[in-house]
């Protein structure tokens, strides 16, 4: 095999300019894929992190049917203390769950005594919430980074519109489950950065205040947000949790609760999917580049070396070895391209990191793009290129191995 590799390498060196050209083409494709994957991966993880760790949480548990009508804030689908207790026990039994936070969601009207506007509120337990969505505190632009009883965190848009500042009194009016309207005065404890998308009008009050405002007889919960220790294992934890939650049945024998990951709850998931789709397309383009260029160059090689192939066959080289020579040659060319491409990709990715390229997401600016290439991506892309190079060489190699020595020797 070493001899075959040596001969293949020498043949590549024989056509230096062509080898460099095809290698450069493959390297360019590898750079495009690696840099795109690294940059889009960084963009995605920053935005996903922002969504999950500053707003939604990584997963949410609701009573069955809640998410379908989540925009209506259906209080009749809140979870009662017994059910919440069951879920808490399940969550505590899964070591990969780092934190969870019980929430009450409600819609209401906020008044600064001269103007009113509607808003959506989360009643939260600050201690649990800040562990479950650890970036929430960083979203508090003004005021205390804590949330005490009687305080409200007002979203930035509304604060600006109503000309509300920290310490100002406001009244929140909300309709409870039986339809009666209740009001309660709060002090603005902080201004929270408006979340991008539909969450832009979300404010926060203490969960006990929310229960009081809604005149709850017992502490109900609209949703439980969950944070896992390792985000990369979210799918596994999701499956584990779903399995356990599904054991809890309602009177109709159907699962009592439903569990969703952030992807089912945030419209950004579609953008994330688009990014993944683009990654697939760019990989397909790489495959096409490699396949076409390798096949082309190998067909050319077989054509140019027909007489030489005839000589090797006449000497007694078995067709299988001639096949192997050309396959290895194509594979080596792919390897050369992938090595050059990977090295240049590392340089390009680090150049982007050093340049501190920033972008904005929603109202928040200054996200620093921090692309990084994972060993897994490098291995996968390298393997794809090498395998495709070998596949691209198969047909020309087969043709070479099937050449009749007598005809090949007569070739000029």
């Amino acid at each position, binding site marked *: 095999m070493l001899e075959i590799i040596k001969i293949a390498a020498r*043949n590549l060196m024989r056509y230096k300019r062509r080898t460099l050209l095809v290698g450069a083409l493959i390297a360019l494709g590898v750079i495009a894929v690696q840099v795109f994957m690294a940059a889009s991966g960084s963009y995605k993880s920053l935005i996903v992190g922002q969504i999950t760790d500053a707003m939604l949480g990584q997963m949410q548990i609701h009573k069955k049917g809640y998410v379908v009508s989540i925009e209506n804030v259906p209080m009749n689908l809140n979870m009662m203390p017994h059910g919440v207790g069951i879920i808490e026990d399940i969550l505590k039994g899964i070591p990969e769950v780092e934190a969870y936070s019980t929430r009450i969601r409600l819609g209401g009207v906020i008044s600064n005594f001269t103007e009113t506007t509607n808003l959506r509120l989360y009643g939260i337990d600050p201690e649990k919430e800040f562990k479950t969505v650890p970036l929430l505190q960083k979203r508090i632009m003004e005021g205390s980074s804590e949330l005490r009883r009687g305080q409200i965190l007002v979203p930035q848009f509304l604060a600006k519109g109503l000309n509300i500042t920290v310490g100002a009194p406001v009244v929140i009016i909300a309709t409870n489950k039986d339809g009666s309207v209740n009001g309660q005065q709060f002090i603005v404890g902080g201004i929270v950065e408006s979340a991008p998308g539909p969450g832009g009008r979300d404010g926060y009050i203490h969960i006990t205040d929310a229960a009081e405002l809604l005149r709850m007889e017992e502490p109900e919960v609209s949703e439980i947000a969950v944070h896992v220790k390792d985000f990369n294992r979210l799918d596994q934890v999701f499956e584990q949790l779903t399995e356990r939650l599904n054991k809890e049945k309602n009177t109709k024998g159907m699962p009592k609760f439903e569990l969703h990951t952030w992807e089912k709850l945030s419209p950004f998931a579609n953008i994330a999917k688009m990014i993944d789709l683009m990654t697939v397309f760019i990989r397909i383009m790489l495959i096409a580049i490699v396949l076409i260029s390798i096949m082309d160059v190998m067909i050319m090689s077989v054509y140019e070396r027909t007489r030489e192939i005839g000589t090797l066959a006449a000497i007694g080289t078995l067709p299988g070895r001639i096949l192997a020579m050309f396959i290895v040659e194509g594979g080596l060319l792919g390897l050369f391209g992938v090595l050059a491409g990977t090295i240049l990709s590392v340089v390009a990715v680090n150049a982007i990191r050093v340049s501190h390229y920033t972008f904005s997401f929603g109202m928040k600016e200054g996200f620093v793009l921090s692309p990084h290439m994972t060993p897994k991506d490098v291995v996968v892309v390298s393997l794809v290129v090498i395998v495709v190079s070998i596949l691209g060489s198969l047909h020309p190699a087969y043709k070479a191995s099937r050449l009749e020595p007598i005809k090949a020797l007569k070739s000029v």
Partner: protein
Amino acid sequence: MTIVKAENVGKFYETGTVTVQALKDVSFSIEAGTITSFIGPSGSGKTTLLNLIGCLDKPSSGRLDVGGSNVLALDRTNSAKFRGGNIGFIFQDFNLVPILTVYENVEYPLVMVRDTPAAERRKLVLNLLEAVEMADQSEKYPDQISGGQKQRVAIARALVTSPKLVLADEPTANLDHKTAYMILSLMKKMRDELSTTFIFSTHDPKIVGEAECIYTIEDGILTGQQEKGAANHA
């Protein structure tokens, strides 16, 4: 012992609607350990006959046994195995592999055809390179040596596996007198020491003079056979 036996061997090529008869009912036999020469004008069928004996091509009719094997019965892979195991080729245009050095060209059949161990390979290659006086050029590539030197390398490559049969198509056509005689004496030495059979197609009187048996071909027909010291017209 007969190493090549041809019985009514014919070979025709079809070019579109035209059929070209390259060999017609050729019958002969060649004994092992001899030097045999096929002579005749260009296009007479010498090279075609050599290609058939070398299992590079198959007869259209008749029977041809080489080294006891019927060449018609060999498929592509077995033909290659047979050539690698029994036959050495010396081409008129040398046909050296340009990416391999002189040493590697001679070594090639031992590596890629015979799987000979490295130590044995080195010994065999160096012996032959010395025999053809090319040991001092062993690291050079074919484009760095002269035509005569290339032919010597090609001969070393053909002989390195100690084949039973060596086929040479105009082996001295591109060589000067001195080199041609050196190569001829090497071949005779191989014949004497290893009982290697040499078959040439040639116009070269030097080679014809060294051959123990000379066949004349004209228009694809064997028209004469001459053994050293005797003449016999077919």
